[in-house]
């Protein structure tokens, strides 16, 4: 697949958005969907629909097979050792809540420490915060350096003999910093610490290899990977998923139910209570095929070129201050413009069809640290081009005009 023609695979780019061509720079928030994924949802509901894993009629068996096919595709895509290490959730947020909740129930003890970082998205902080109240767990923050990076030393120095979990992002959704998960995991495991990775931004932008990273858990957001909303993946090492208690109770996750006792199902059913996001799971198989057809190496190369180009033109723009200068930057360019609040930037860009995000991007801890309440963020997907970044830069110049700045 030619990456230069990739936009054609996405029907939304045929639309006029308020009479403009769409320049979509908000993929870190959620990516657009290729036609193959949309068609698959429609086809499944139109021609093949049934619930999975329960009934024995033809459609149910066929749907169950399709559903399980995606599990196998995900397993292969992220190089997990075992198919049963893949659990579908309603999103990465639920995946992280599942891990925090069940580790909290079964493993963590009062005064144990969870080490997170100042880069974390609220979804990799708030679930751990719950354990502060319920379990008297302490939370520590590894600090960013001046480049918006987390050097491994900053993690190492926060580790104590009470540290039980390191919960950390693979790729910051604000500074774009790519963290050395493999090295962090080696360090953590040498001290018996569990590693939980928020892979929301890692999923679409990085090569995923669970056996190489060796982390214990990895949370994926499918809608950021050109897949449907309402779906996430939790990768968990088998030894953990077998050992930890169920997260939610309901149909599908049980083995045997009596008035006085209940036993739970085997993996992965144990963690998939109730009717799952069936159509989304089945359509996500097409997202994986789409990513594979381009090749993650090509995606990385394409996005690296865009990031370098974006950095170059924004650095030349005197009023723009880029946030962070990490050693390895993936997917996002966050910035502020002197004299124009990020909300005003977003509104003015929107008038010309340039969609970015403004705010704290669910990272208030980081914005507090940076001493700002909000930033503007342009984030990339496979469909973006240098032309999109030129339009971003033109839009920023237009902001300066509206605000009468030099």
């Amino acid at each position: 697949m030619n990456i230069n023609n990739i936009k054609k695979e996405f029907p939304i780019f045929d639309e006029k958005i308020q009479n403009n061509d769409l320049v979509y720079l908000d993929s870190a928030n959620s990516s657009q969907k290729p036609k193959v994924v949309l068609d698959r949802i429609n086809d499944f509901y139109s021609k093949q629909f049934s619930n999975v894993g329960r009934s024995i009629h033809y459609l149910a068996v066929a749907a169950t097979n399709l559903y399980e096919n995606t599990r196998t595709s995900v397993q292969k895509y992220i190089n997990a050792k075992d198919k049963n290490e893949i659990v579908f959730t309603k999103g990465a947020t639920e995946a992280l809540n599942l891990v925090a909740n069940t580790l909290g129930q079964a493993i963590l003890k009062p005064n144990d420490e969870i080490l997170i970082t100042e880069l974390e998205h609220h979804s990799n902080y708030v679930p751990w915060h719950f354990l502060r109240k319920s379990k008297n767990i302490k939370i520590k923050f590894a600090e960013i350096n001046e480049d918006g990076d987390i050097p491994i030393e900053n993690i190492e120095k926060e580790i104590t003999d009470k540290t039980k979990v390191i919960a950390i992002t693979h790729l910051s959704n604000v500074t774009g910093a790519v963290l050395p998960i493999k090295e962090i995991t080696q360090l953590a495991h040498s001290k018996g610490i569990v590693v939980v990775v928020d892979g929301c931004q890692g999923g679409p932008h990085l090569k995923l290899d669970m056996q190489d990273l060796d982390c214990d858990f990895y949370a994926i957001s499918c809608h950021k990977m050109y897949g449907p909303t309402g779906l996430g993946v939790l990768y968990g090492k088998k030894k953990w998923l077998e050992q930890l208690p169920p997260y939610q109770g309901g149909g599908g996750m049980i083995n045997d139910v009596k008035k006085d006792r209940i036993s739970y199902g085997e993996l992965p059913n144990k963690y998939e209570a109730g009717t799952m996001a069936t159509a989304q799971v089945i359509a996500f198989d097409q997202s994986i095929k789409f990513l594979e057809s381009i090749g993650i190496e090509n995606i990385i190369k394409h996005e690296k070129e865009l990031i370098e180009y974006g950095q170059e033109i924004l650095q030349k723009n005197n009023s723009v201050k880029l946030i962070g200068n990490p050693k390895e930057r993936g997917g996002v360019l966050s910035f502020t413009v002197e004299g124009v609040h990020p909300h005003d930037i977003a509104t003015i860009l929107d008038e010309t069809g340039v969609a970015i995000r403004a705010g704290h991007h669910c990272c208030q801890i980081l914005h507090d640290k940076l001493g700002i309440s909000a930033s503007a963020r342009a984030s990339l997907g496979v469909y973006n081009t240098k032309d999109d970044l030129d339009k971003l830069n033109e839009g920023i110049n237009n902001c300066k005009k509206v605000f009468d700045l030099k």
Partner: protein
Amino acid sequence: MNLKELYQEIILEHGKNPRNLRKTDNFNKDAKGNNPLCGDNVHVYLKLNDQRKVEDISFEGSGCAISMASASIMTDLIKGKSDNEAKEIIEDFLGMIKENPDLKNKILKEDDKTKLMCLSGVKQYPMRVKCATLSWHTLVSAMENDGKRVSTED
């Protein structure tokens, strides 16, 4: 959609040079407000005298041009009014931003009403209405002084 309607001269000017951006000495009522979607926040201070007149009103905080201009114009217009007049103006403003085409109150002078009407441009930008109303909701909370924090997401 028209950017010029949203970013009118008065708004840009108030946004750049907000009036009463400070903390009132000896304030006797105050409240904090925030917009959790964007992290913007405002703290409104009020000094009501024995005759229940707003002797001074000020605010601290950070935000976009719309929210800063709105807070600036608000403090300008509320200063010197009785608490009942202030309540009427607030209700009238919030009504105008939500649905009414015009301001109805008879308290404000015409040129003051014109200033307020400059904020009506946000009506075309539903995501920005909260920017214009945050300081006003926070003022209501300060006047009631119930110590409640105002959030645009409550």
